[in-house]
């Protein structure tokens, strides 16, 4: 069936089908046209599943000390054991928790703040817009890594600090892109029509403009999540992220863990692979979502 036929089918289906069937249809369409994105989302769901049910997937206490030190992978310890006798598989599985919480949390905060400010700046224009745009230019002038280093140094070590720092580093660029989108959407005739019939500013912003920003917001979020994951991993690797000892992929790649890498190939391989696969899956999903939701951005690698 050609591309045109299938979209024709779907046009007929609208209204005729119950809602869940049209949802199923668009999911099936995504699976068929975006195989890589589908692989991405399946892997992400698997990792999320392991993270949630970490207690039940052949794991032992990731922070307790065991007696089998530096054992290679076996049936008992899938990924071998580390210098503290901890099961590396357990550490990798539990390590998915901070990674997902940080990635999603930081991007959530950044998106929330950036969307709110973008609506204010793009809708009202004037002095608010000028001030916010200048602030964005200033914040962007400092390399992201320096913001991250400064913020994690200035505040106490906690998952909240990390979320805040990463969100802070990523929101200016998000704000800039979303502001352009708001200005674009505010110029559309139906917004003017809404204003003419006397709709209030908040109503226009949240009921008319915000829903139309959703595609771009989803695209930006899916591109920022892998970047946030890498930023957190980098910080933790340098010893400035999560608390020492926490089961975390980057933690097992840096700091004290490194002294033992010469005694076991499995020590650096598995935690790093978990991180790489997660970031890759988010990137594949992000690419597919961009293709589906915003064809103008196809393959640009930007935003």
């Amino acid at each position, binding site marked *: 069936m050609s591309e045109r036929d299938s979209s024709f089918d779907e046009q007929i289906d609208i209204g005729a089908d119950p809602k869940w069937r049209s949802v199923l249809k668009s999911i099936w369409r995504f699976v068929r046209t975006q195989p890589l994105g589908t692989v991405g989302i399946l892997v992400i769901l698997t990792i999320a599943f392991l993270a949630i049910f970490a207690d039940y997937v052949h794991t032992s206490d990731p922070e307790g000390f065991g007696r089998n030190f530096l054992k290679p992978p076996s049936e008992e310890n899938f990924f071998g054991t580390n210098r503290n006798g901890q099961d590396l598989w357990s550490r990798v599985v539990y390590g998915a928790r901070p990674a997902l919480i940080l990635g999603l949390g930081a991007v959530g905060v950044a998106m929330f703040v950036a969307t709110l400010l973008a609506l204010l700046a793009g809708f009202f224009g004037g002095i608010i817009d000028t001030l916010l745009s200048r602030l964005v230019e200033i914040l962007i*002038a*400092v390399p992201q890594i*320096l913001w991250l280093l*400064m913020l994690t140094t200035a505040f106490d070590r906690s998952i909240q600090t990390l979320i805040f720092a990463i969100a802070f580093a990523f929101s200016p660029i998000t704000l800039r892109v979303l502001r352009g989108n708001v200005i674009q959407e505010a110029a559309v005739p139906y917004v003017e029509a809404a204003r003419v019939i006397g709709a209030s500013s908040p109503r226009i912003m949240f009921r008319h403009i915000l829903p139309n920003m959703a595609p771009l917001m989803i695209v930006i979020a899916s591109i920022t999540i892998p970047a946030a994951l890498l930023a957190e991993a980098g910080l933790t690797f340098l010893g400035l992220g999560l608390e020492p000892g926490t089961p975390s992929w980057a933690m097992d790649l840096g700091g004290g863990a490194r002294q033992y890498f010469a005694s076991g*190939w499995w020590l650096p391989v598995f935690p*790093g692979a978990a*991180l*790489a696969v997660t970031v890759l899956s988010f990137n594949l999903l992000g690419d597919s979502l961009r293709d589906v939701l915003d064809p103008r951005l196809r393959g640009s*690698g930007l935003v």
Partner: protein
Amino acid sequence: MQAYIIRRLILVPVTLFIISVIVFVFMRAVPGDAGVAKCGAAGSFDQKCFEVVRQELGLDKPKIEQYWIWFSDIFKGDLGFSPLQRIHINEEVWGRLWNTFQIGILSLIFTVLIGIPIGAISAIRSGKLIDYLLRFFAILGISVPNFWIATLIIFLPAYFWQIRVAPDWVGWEEPLMHLRVVALPAIILSLSGAGAIARIARSSMLEVLSSDFVRTARAKGLRERVTVIRHVFRPSMITIFTIIGLQFSLVLGGSVIMEAIFGIQGIGLWVIEAIAARDFVIIQAIVMLLSFWFLLITLLVDVAYAWVDPRIRYN
């Protein structure tokens, strides 16, 4: 155009001033100041040493005065004195910058050499197997964390074959050896940039490939190779060069981790050491310096962009 450049040039010191305020506030919020870091925490704490350090740092003066002394010094080109390392930052910083710069520039060369051909081949063979393979490599490049690649490259050969891959820093006294030492972190650092550039090169070339003048060139019987090189490659270079300019400032940030792994005495490792020692004079100096650098590069890129492509007008 001139007005635009002048406006941008005026904004540089304004931006730097505001950054300096933000940085100062953040760094004074750091728990545990340099006095404590230098003179030991509770137990072995030395009150006299503490007071001397605080005086040297000017920590006993009011905050506003501290800021003003620091800021006016920076504007005069004096980045300050680090009482912890007992060095004038100006004396140390250039050697450090030079080391980071060598890695940065080499990494940028690798980024271009790897990224652009991959993007170009991918665009020309669009939809073919090779396109899918190259695109997958590009996305792999931006996904796989560089510190993991570096770790594997250092430890796996050492584990399996007892080979030492990363030699010590030797300096330009041994040029060939030095290049080898610099090349390894540079190429690892370049991978994510190469992936990004490949994706951008591909999409901008695809855009040009579907334009009217390319169809005309093909219609008049121009050989494919000439069409691609003369009509496709050149216009898409504009986008690519902008990104390369921005990539250069990213590389400086990314080298922090490479310097930490390979123990290279550059700016990045210096920041990490300074953070560990709570030596905020150094942190402040580096943030100001790199921001200045970043602003200049962005300005140059924007101006070059407007100059190359006259359709772009900045208001």
